[in-house]
């Protein structure tokens, strides 16, 4: 069982750490660098993102599996991923509204739209498809990416709070020092591996 699970574990850890969306690709950092907010909101953001991206990844994978060789799909594969995201977002919105979770978590429509149609969600779908692997591996990569993003945002948020109460030169206060902090964290993650990225 362990030998069957180890390729999946490798994919999960790769998505979580070495190909982390924030530190390796700078995707998803800006939302929290500028907006800030409470720590407690970040896991909600992660769960929302996962619930929107997972069905979208599965639909996009199915579309690629069925239409991959069609010349029209090759030209418009990005649009197919986007359409999968739109359908998934619609389904999640209906579910959140009927289950009352949107009111319980106090998630506004604007936040939901940003999560659903931001760079982050589309990046997770496209990167998962880039693996050119089976459904289970693709979904595992998407799960690892989402968790990696959530953990990275928690780290950035904690770091920003500490920087706000530290003595920093006036020119570096605010956004510049946050960017430097992000760059150094990203360098530390890169130092673990040092490998070329799939683009």
């Amino acid at each position: 069982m362990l030998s069957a699970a180890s390729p999946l574990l490798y994919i999960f850890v790769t998505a979580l750490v070495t190909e982390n969306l924030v530190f390796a690709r700078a995707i998803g950092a800006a939302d929290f660098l500028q907006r800030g907010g409470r720590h407690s909101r970040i896991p909600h953001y992660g769960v929302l993102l996962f619930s929107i991206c997972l069905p979208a990844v599965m639909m996009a994978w199915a579309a690629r599996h069925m239409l991959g060789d069609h010349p029209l799909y090759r030209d418009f594969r990005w649009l197919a991923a986007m359409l999968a995201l739109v359908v998934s977002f619609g389904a999640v919105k209906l579910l959140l509204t009927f289950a009352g979770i949107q009111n319980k978590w106090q998630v506004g429509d604007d936040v939901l739209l940003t999560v659903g149609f931001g760079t982050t969600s589309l990046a997770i779908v496209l990167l998962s498809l880039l693996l050119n692997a089976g459904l289970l591996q693709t979904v595992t990569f998407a799960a690892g990416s989402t968790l990696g993003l959530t953990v990275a945002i928690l780290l950035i948020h904690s770091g920003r709070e500490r920087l706000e109460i530290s003595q920093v030169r006036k020119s570096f206060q605010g956004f510049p020092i946050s960017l430097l902090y992000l760059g150094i964290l990203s360098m530390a993650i890169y130092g673990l591996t040092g490998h070329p990225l799939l683009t």
Partner: protein
Amino acid sequence: MKTKKLGKHKKMLKRTSWVLKSNPVVAMGLALPFAVVPTVSLRAGVVMSLLVGTATLWMALISSLTRNWAKPMVKLPLLVITSMLCIILVSKYMNLPQSVTDALGIYIPLASVNSLALEAAARSGQKKLPAAVWTGLKLSLSFALTACSVSAVREILAYKTIWGVSFALYPIKITGLTLPCFGFIVLGFGAAFFKGLDRWIAKTLYQSENRTTALKEVGSDA
């Protein structure tokens, strides 16, 4: 206490705030991934600016045109789908060189949902067409300025070239600058530099104006 020169300086800064002081990339963190990661050469920076600008202008235009008849829940999916179509058509017919396509990778389709374009759509939602187009243009130009500056610096320091032409003014090549972490660091130092420059100019103008006034007063007393 005189602040005439300082007032003139602040007025001038206000006119150019959309590209300098309130630059959406450096001051608000919009479209950060597009300015930090794929900008490893000036060519890539220019192409990225073109793609981000296309999506931004398109979103501003369509958002303004649909301001009276679409709710946000319907409008935004429509905007992102049409923006993606736009990016696909532009990238297909631009005949990009392979080196640039490899450098940009998934940032090409991601340009259709970049945060700058979403911001342009939000700002243009209540504006008429000319104002919306101007908003889109301002945001696109400010991104282009940032992305091209960062990419030029990184290409010069990492490859000792500019637009593929040799620019060997110094012996060291720092190829590590093409890594994403150094994109953050270059942008961070750039943002701090311009913030510090603005403060230094304001301080110098204020001191020169008030030193002249103080000297005149001392001279008249004597």
